[in-house]
């Protein structure tokens, strides 16, 4: 079997094995559904509660996507500002770090006091997602080939020509790597805020459904919602990887398959 088909078949096989064991354990020990639902029950719940869960998924995904977009724009703009004006970097960088290292779980309840719930979720998604964009883009902007920089200087390029024609394109691989991390993180941020909001009894996102189902001991629905969340995360990751690959495929080593 080729390397490629192995890489597809083996994970599927492992998954099937886990599901089979899960099903056998539930049957053998007659575990009640409010402790551990069988895989079949999770699937039927996914279908029977489909309308509700789908709606919640859309709410969560919309906020995730908005948070991601704000993080992407904010991270890149801030990185460019840091790169262009030292004083801005010195003034703001410590606070970007502080925002990043303070656990978002601890910030979320506070935000929920001051902001309406969807806005608080958006803010959480933004807070966790913008830092990798900022850090990676900053690294990319600062790792420009010195000789190319000298060449631009030789031809008397303006600051904006250097930024637009040299620094931004050369930072693109790192920027895209940052965005790929940010995609997953903005989902996490949104979920964390929704869970916090859920403990206050408000919300309509998928994570709120998980919290709510937990309180009601509706464990099959909890599993179904969790399954949807994972799938959403995987889809975000693959979408961003594909975009990155499309942008870099002509020139960057990371996107080019090595010939043997």
């Amino acid at each position, binding site marked *: 079997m080729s390397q490629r088909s192995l890489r597809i078949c083996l994970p599927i096989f492992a998954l099937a094995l886990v599901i089979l064991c899960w099903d056998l354990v539930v049957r053998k020990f007659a575990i009640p559904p409010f402790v551990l639902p069988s895989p079949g029950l999770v699937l039927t719940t996914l279908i029977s509660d489909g309308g509700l869960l789908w709606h919640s998924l859309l709410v969560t995904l919309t906020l995730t996507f908005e948070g991601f977009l704000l993080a992407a724009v904010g991270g890149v703009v801030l990185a460019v500002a840091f790169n262009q004006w030292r004083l801005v970097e010195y003034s703001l960088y410590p606070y970007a770090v502080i925002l990043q290292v303070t656990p978002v779980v601890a910030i979320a309840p506070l935000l929920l006091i001051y902001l309406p719930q969807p806005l608080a979720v958006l803010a959480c998604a933004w807070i966790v997602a913008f830092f990798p964009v900022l850090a990676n883009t900053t690294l990319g902007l600062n790792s420009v*080939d010195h*000789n*190319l920089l*000298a*060449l*631009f*200087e*030789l*031809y*008397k*390029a303006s600051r904006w*020509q250097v930024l637009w*024609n*040299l620094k931004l*394109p*050369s930072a*693109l691989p790192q920027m895209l790597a940052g965005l790929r991390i940010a995609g997953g993180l903005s989902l996490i941020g949104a979920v964390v805020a929704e869970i916090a909001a859920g403990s206050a009894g408000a919300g309509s996102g998928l994570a709120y459904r998980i919290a709510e189902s937990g309180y009601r001991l509706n464990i099959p629905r909890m599993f179904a919602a969790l399954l949807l969340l994972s799938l959403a995360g995987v889809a975000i990751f693959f979408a961003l990887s594909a975009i990155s690959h499309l942008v870099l495929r*002509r*020139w*960057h*080593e990371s996107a*080019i398959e090595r010939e043997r």
Partner: protein
Amino acid sequence: MPAPPLNNSPSTSRIVALRGVEKNFATGVRALDRFDLDVRAGEFVSLLGPSGCGKSTALRIIAGLSVPSAGAVEWPDGAGRIGFVFQEPTLMPWADVTTNVRLPLKLANNDDMVAVVQALESVGLASFARSYPRELSGGMKMRVSIARALVTTPQLLLMDEPFAALDEITRFKLNNDLLAIWHALRRTVIFVTHSVFESVYLSQRIVVMTPRPGRVFAEIFVDASYPRDERFRTSSEYAGFCRQAAEALAQAMASGAAS
């Protein structure tokens, strides 16, 4: 083809001169010490010296990329357009060959595509206009780099060990092509190298430098006619100049070690 006039005719005008140039780096390294250089218009001159003798620094000072700690750079007729070729091809990997060659024009808001095509043709890469740098061999990348330096039709072409990283066959080929371009365009070339053989093959005049801090140790006039080709490379005349240059270099090294 008529041979170009020989370098030592005093009538040709100076294009650039370095007067007592010194360069001290913040690390305490003194790269250049009272360095004097006169370059005449249309001349092919090589700076020959061991690595770290400040020859690249001298080139960067002429290009205005580095500021001398003392001394001055004089441009009798005003500073003209300069082309610079680095030791590495220094291309933008995200841009195709045409975009790379066009860069100097683009930065001057000049969209003269004819000049781009001509520059590509002069280095024999017209059919690779749409290729990306990573799709090219080392020698071809260097040709793109030379085309980019030529695209603004510079009066002065500065080359910093451009062929040092290439294999010998490619290097010989590019040596010949560079001489053909120089002959056709009549530019002034300042060529930095640590290869005795390359400097003799290419130049009219070789400036031999001492090890750090760099100073002019000797000047050798290579009074051999152009066009030069592979026959010149195996001639006794070539061997003689090489011996002369190698001896001067050895003496320069010894003087550097003594001081």
